[in-house]
């Protein structure tokens, strides 16, 4: 590439940077005037927007908002599953399919073994089987799933299944990671455990991530930035940066800054979430 590294302060100094383009000041994801409407008039529903969004390389952005505010719609547009009604969403990438998505339900396939599930993205990309298996097994080991490699997902608990979904998404080394309330179906304790695991993982990988959640706590723990959306049609109404340097751990949950940020965000959100 040959571009000189621009002298701008990186958000978290001292991090390992495997991705050379991570210093690119141009945003990884840029949405302009994005809206999405469903249905035809007179019964059409304005689900999203107008919304502007910029996500930098390696940034972990959390989106919180009340139910039905269009968070999932935004994610699906980013994933390529939906087209916007107006506006554009640009992703700066060299791969044709840069995104990997983790869903809340129906993510992984019951008819494939755990290993085959994790290998799925690689199979689609026609990676040779040997190499794909090796990469999949590496991820299984990393997520603590090595013992279940040949089991079928129906025999796993919900937490294990979401670990498989995360492994599957990360096995293809995506440039953009999209996560749609991945821990919503899990109980509170498991949720915290997986949040900590994800925190550690993403701090190592520095993948650009867009993360949707209802939980303010989760957003503050995981995110470089927390964006608050209004009720339908969703627009960005606030942006906060959790004042915790990287690398973080789950201990930040007990700090006073955490609590005060959480209260501030909740005050914002409560107005949006309350029925009109």
């Amino acid at each position, binding site marked *: 590439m040959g571009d000189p590294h621009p002298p701008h302060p990186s958000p978290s100094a001292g991090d390992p940077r495997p991705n050379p383009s991570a210093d690119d000041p141009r945003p990884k994801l840029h949405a302009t005037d994005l809206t999405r409407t469903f249905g035809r008039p007179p019964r059409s529903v304005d689900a999203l927007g107008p919304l502007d969004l910029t996500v930098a390389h390696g940034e972990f952005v959390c989106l919180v908002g009340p139910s039905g505010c269009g968070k999932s719609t935004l994610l*699906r547009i980013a*994933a*390529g*599953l939906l087209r916007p009604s107006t506006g554009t969403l640009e992703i700066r990438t060299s791969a*044709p*399919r840069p*995104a*990997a*998505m983790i*869903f809340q*339900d*129906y*993510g*992984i*396939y*019951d*008819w*494939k073994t755990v290993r085959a599930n994790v290998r*799925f*993205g690689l*199979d*689609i*990309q026609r990676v040779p089987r040997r190499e794909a298996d090796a990469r999949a097994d590496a991820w299984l080991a990393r997520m603590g799933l090595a013992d279940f490699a040949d089991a*079928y997902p*129906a025999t796993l608990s919900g937490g294990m299944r979401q670990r498989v979904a995360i492994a599957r998404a990360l096995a*293809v080394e995506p440039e953009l990671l*999209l996560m749609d309330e991945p821990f919503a179906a899990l109980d509170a304790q498991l949720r915290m455990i997986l949040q900590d695991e994800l925190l550690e993982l993403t701090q190592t990988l520095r993948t650009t991530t867009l993360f949707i959640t209802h939980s303010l706590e989760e957003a503050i723990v995981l995110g470089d930035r927390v964006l608050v959306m209004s009720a339908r049609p969703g627009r960005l109404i606030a942006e906060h940066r959790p004042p915790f340097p990287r690398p973080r751990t789950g201990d930040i949950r007990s700090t006073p800054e955490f609590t005060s940020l959480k209260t501030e965000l909740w005050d914002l959100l409560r107005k949006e979430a309350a029925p009109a």
Partner: protein
Amino acid sequence: MTTVAPEKISVLVRRPGPQELHPARTHRRRRALELSLAVAVPLLLVLLWQLAAAQAWIDDRVYPAPSTILADGWDRAAAGDLWPDVWATLKRVLAGYAVGTAAGYALGLLMGSLSLVRAALEPLLDALYVVPKLALLPVFLNMFGLGEGPQVALVAATVFFFVWISTMSAVLAIPSGHRDAGQVFGASPWQMFRHVLLPASLPAVLVGARIAAGVAVLVIVASEQIAATNGLGHLIFDSRALFQNDVMFVGIVCVAVLGVLFSELVRVFGRLLTPWAPRDRGRGQS
């Protein structure tokens, strides 16, 4: 002053039962009980039938005793008279089933995945679905002449609709989340089919295939009555016309056994194809 009689207080105890104290033994006995019931109940009914015939509660000239049926069937089988009919029926059922299943599966997949094809063909197929296939037998006789053609065509037509409908609805019922995952990873239509649509729809398709197996045997018996010169269906109705009740019952029992075996075969085959699916028989799970 009112006096209240003192209430009798007793202590309720929750204690371990046999299942908790001797889990292995209880499980073994439970399995033994289930197994013996599965064998004993049909056996009991057959013995009851035998008794009824022997005690003349039923007219054994019209409803022969099981022993008579067994003896007659055994004699026929030993003399080699039974096998040609069984084989003739089996050939027709298998051929018709193969054709019907292949066509039904292909069309079901096509119509389930491509909405344009579905829009084009669904009204037509829905209308044909309710036409009794036996009513089409004269049409098949005209098309294929005498011989195996109309029989196989009839079985194939019947099986087709069962398999087509369960395949199409199975594919349509695949949760969109499954497709989304494949789409985000960039799966081509063939990859989507191979990794997602085919395996996701397979369990429901196999249920339809199993039902179709039983129906295929049903249909072939009826069609052999009209348009065949051999086969179990022909045997049943021929012996009825000749007022040979015991032979008729031998035919009926043979058809029943054939139907059960065929249906079970399809079930076992289905289990091999779908190792991830939950078992539909409680026995395998207990």
